[in-house]
């Protein structure tokens, strides 16, 4: 009886340790994608190849905590468009609208990129992680996490996420349906360096998202010039959006 009890206790403890490690890994990986408390600004360029057609969109992204303000800068016809992310909800405004309108973060931004891909990610907030296995990719030992959405407002139902155990950065993602079928596959690079509170750490420089069924369809998000900035929380309040 004691042996059974001890065995159970050891099993439970190891599960707890693994669960904690999964969340800790996820939180650490969010840092490299904008999930920090202070204000960050970066330029985002989305290059899309879909059904043989190429297109580009550019944005200025301001993020702080769970909020983000994204302003479209190119192409010309999108000038004046703004997106506000509050937690998991998103608002859209363009000059022909009288007021901001709430829209789904799952709506397409461009090609394979959804609206929710452009701003900072908070996977630790939005998903419940479990460790599936470990795997080596490009010589890097990765913990492979299965992330399940905490609610239907987040961009993807499930994500299989490869986090480099050494750098604690997410380097590959499979975006899955509720049934677990891959919709899109993403690859991340971290060539940017962000300085925050006297520390420097890697920041995402590129996210490539490929259609799992039609690999020729893909979007590449380039994250440029990330820098910390003093951002007023008021700019993320749609009541204060200048129109």
């Amino acid at each position, binding site marked *: 009886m004691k042996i059974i009890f001890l065995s159970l206790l050891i099993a439970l403890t190891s599960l707890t340790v693994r669960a904690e490690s999964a969340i800790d890994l996820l939180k650490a990986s969010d840092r490299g994608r904008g999930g920090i408390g202070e204000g960050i600004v970066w330029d985002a360029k989305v290059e899309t190849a*879909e*059904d043989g*057609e190429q*297109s580009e969109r550019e944005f200025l992204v301001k993020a702080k905590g*769970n909020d983000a303000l994204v302003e479209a800068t*190119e*192409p*010309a*016809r999108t*000038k*004046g468009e703004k997106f*506000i992310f*509050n*937690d*998991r*909800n998103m*608002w859209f405004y363009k*000059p*022909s609208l*009288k*007021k901001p309108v*709430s*829209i*789904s973060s799952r*709506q*397409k931004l461009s090609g394979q990129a959804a609206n929710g891909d452009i701003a900072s990610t908070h996977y630790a907030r939005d998903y419940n992680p479990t460790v599936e296995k470990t795997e080596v990719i490009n010589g890097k030992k990765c913990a492979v996490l299965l992330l399940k959405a905490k*609610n*239907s*407002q987040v961009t993807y139902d499930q994500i299989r996420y490869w986090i480099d155990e050494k750098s604690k950065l997410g380097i590959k993602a499979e975006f899955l349906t509720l049934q677990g079928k891959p919709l899109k596959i993403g690859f991340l690079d971290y060539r940017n360096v962000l300085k925050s509170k006297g520390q420097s750490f890697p920041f995402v420089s590129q996210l490539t998202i490929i259609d799992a069924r039609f690999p020729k369809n893909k979007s590449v998000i380039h994250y440029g010039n990330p820098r910390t900035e003093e951002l*007023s*929380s*008021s*700019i993320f*309040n*749609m*009541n*204060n959006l*200048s*129109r």
Partner: protein
Amino acid sequence: MSFLFGSLGRAADFSFYSDQYLYGTYSDIKDSDLNTDNRGLALPIHLFAADIRPELKLTSEGWDVVARPRFEFAGENIQYNNPVKNTWTSNNKIDLTTAYLHWQMLNSVQFNAGLETYQWGGAEILNPSNPFFHFEQQSKSFYYVQKGEALVRLGIDWTSAVTTTLIGEPVSNNEPEWIAPDNANGENQFVPKWALKNELRNSSGDKYIGVVVGQGEKQKNFFGEYATLTFSNGISFYVDAKHQQGRVNFVPELNGLSNYDLVAPTDSGGLWTTAVGGVRYEGTFDYRLEYLFNEPGWSREEFQQARNSLLVLQATQPQNALRFVNPGLELRTQQYLYASIRMPELADKKDMTLFVRDLFSLADQSQALQFVAEKNISDSVVGYFEADSFIGSEETEFGMIYNYQISVGAKWTL
């Protein structure tokens, strides 16, 4: 004081872009006793317009200044019938639709002053709790642009969940007033307005409730409320309402000649409610259904009386016509249904959006049905097609003037 003025000395960034609209409209005008042979209203059947709308923006740390002038060049053809006669006229206008200063005074306090558009709430058809902006039937047309009001606005974010906004309209924007004049001289009578809005929302901003108090048209006191509840399955419910002390709109009244005139109401007491309630589902397409209750509006009988005031040849006919067009009502009768569908990402390249909108009068079953198609032609050009159908007899609210209108145009952005 440095936190107030310290940023003024820093270099400002200047940005500019410009939208150019080019469009044409054909209107099929109803031949009716209100507008026989188009000799009563002289409405254009053809309209061609070039509309240049630049935005100039100066931004520095903590403040920005935005100006949106407008240069409109339009040519109209008014066609009279019996005998047919076409008259071409041109209407050119230089205007300022927006010009304001935005100042982030403190981290949670912001100040705006100038000509701007400021609306709130979840409803698409109307924002009743907002005393500064009113319903405009053409506001969903692709070429429509809302002229700003001269507003002073102070916003305080007490916490991330609670915001207070104080808005005042101290002076006129030099546009004709929303309500036709009610004095003998026919002068525009601007009155200052103000509103104090308090809003409580959750961290996502998808559930919020607000209360508004203030003074609106003709300095009538009002209070209002608005709320939106959004659920994770894409369904949201919303309401927006205003309760005003007394009516401001003209009402039909028998004159000494047993004809009707539109006069200022004598029953200036009581609480009059204008409210919108709606449901929205956002899936692949975006669906909305709204119900509008307009208590100050005319009953069906009153609408006919008001319409009759335009038909009788009497000294007050021109005044009645002005008051019928601008009666001081968001919409003329009391109950409406509004439905809209937005269909984005259509066509092979997923670069086309379709809109279908229907405003239905429960008083007389007339309706204004609109179809708009918007397609990206290039990185800087968007093409538009719009068809508006006005269904109902000439005695109905939406069937009075037009049978249909068709507009085709494009927007080119520099």
